[in-house]
């Protein structure tokens, strides 16, 4: 206590200075809008960094709950979407678009019948001539190529699956552009054969195979699959096995793609054949 009093006595000037200066600064920063704002802003800048890291840690801990909420929301949205879809008229509108150079027309359809265990497999879709779906349109899934429409009635259409011995599509290796013909050999539902790739082409296992525009059915660059293995056949060509990107055992939603200029292209090409 005595020491404290001594200390106070010795430094009374400094203490009074600090008290008065503190009082003045307190008045300055609380009674003046401008200074007050500056101080509050400065303090906020100081605390924002800390707040941010706390928030980050907290949000990480809440991820499970967030995920749950998102899933619930997703389910609700999907249900709503389903209800609305059922009510709306189906919507494949073939539009002749000369303004925007539209080349392809996309629409969604649902698979109502599908097989994978025969040699000639077909997919039945819930859209037909009424919806503008016609022969020689392309069928794809989100994953990749699924088939080609071969017949349509008023309300349904049938597509030839990739898993059909008669199926042919022009395909190429994405990395180098060498193209060949893709077909199915009737053995494995997950693999198809890419033929007619010349042996001087660089082929690597895992290379991506995609469609070309040569058939005037598929748009260019739709994924078909990846090379699972390859061998040199007796002729000048590779024998390439392609692991298909589409899982035909669980087809549900597909896209139907119509080429709006197919007629024009074919007519022109026919003149020279």
């Amino acid at each position: 206590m005595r020491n404290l009093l001594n200390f106070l006595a010795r430094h009374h000037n400094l203490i009074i200075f600090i008290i008065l200066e503190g009082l003045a600064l307190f008045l300055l920063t609380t009674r003046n809008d401008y200074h007050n704002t500056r101080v509050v802003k400065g303090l906020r800048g100081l605390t924002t960094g800390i707040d941010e890291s706390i928030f980050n840690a907290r949000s990480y801990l809440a991820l499970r709950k967030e995920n749950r909420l998102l899933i619930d929301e997703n389910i609700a949205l999907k249900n709503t979407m389903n209800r609305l879809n059922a009510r709306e008229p189906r919507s494949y509108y073939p539009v002749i678009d000369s303004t925007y150079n539209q080349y392809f027309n996309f629409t969604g359809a649902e698979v109502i019948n599908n097989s994978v265990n025969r040699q000639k497999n077909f997919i039945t879709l819930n859209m037909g001539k009424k919806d503008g779906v016609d022969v020689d349109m392309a069928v794809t899934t989100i994953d990749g190529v699924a088939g080609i429409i071969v017949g349509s009635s008023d309300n349904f259409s049938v597509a030839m699956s990739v898993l059909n011995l008669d199926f042919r599509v022009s395909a190429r290796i994405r990395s180098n552009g060498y193209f060949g013909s893709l077909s199915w050999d009737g053995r494995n539902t997950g693999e198809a054969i890419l033929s007619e790739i010349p042996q001087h082409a660089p082929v690597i296992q895992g290379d991506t195979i995609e469609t070309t525009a040569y058939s005037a059915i598929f748009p260019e660059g739709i994924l078909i699959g990846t090379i699972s293995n390859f061998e040199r056949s007796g002729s000048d060509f590779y024998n390439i096995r392609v692991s298909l990107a589409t899982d035909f055992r669980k087809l549900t939603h597909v896209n139907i793609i119509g080429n709006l200029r197919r007629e024009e292209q074919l007519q022109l090409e026919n003149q020279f054949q």
Partner: protein
Amino acid sequence: MINTLIRYGIIFFLLILLQLLVMNNIQFSGYVNPYIYVMIILLMPVEIAAWLLLIIAFLTGISVDIFSGSPGMHASATVLAAFVRPFVLRIISPRDGYESGQGPSMVTYGFKWYLLYAGIIVVIHHTALFYLEVFRFTDFFRTMMRVLLSSLFSVTFILFAEYYRKGR
């Protein structure tokens, strides 16, 4: 004693009135805002207790503050000026020491000494005041320019006032 108090009281009111009614209205291109009330600190006797000087400084500053609508700003700068005054006096003390019983004046210690004394304290006061006023360092050199120009003006005025005080 009573005489001294009355004399300082009158000086106090005169300086503050002069500051509020005249000096606060001088706005020369935004650079010159003289604050001459700091002369109250300069006039106090050399041997005045430091704590008393601090309290007087606070009262002076807060009086100016109340009338210029900036609570704390002038008080803060003036208290700082009062705090450094004893140190300034010690550093620039004349060879024969200070005479007791009166404030540091131009008559006793000469023009050069008084210029140094007033200059140091006014610049310290103005620096604190102007930087507290803008309250940021973005316009650092512009504020410094204001400090120097205003100090020049304030010191000039204080020298004039001191000169006429001497003559009386």
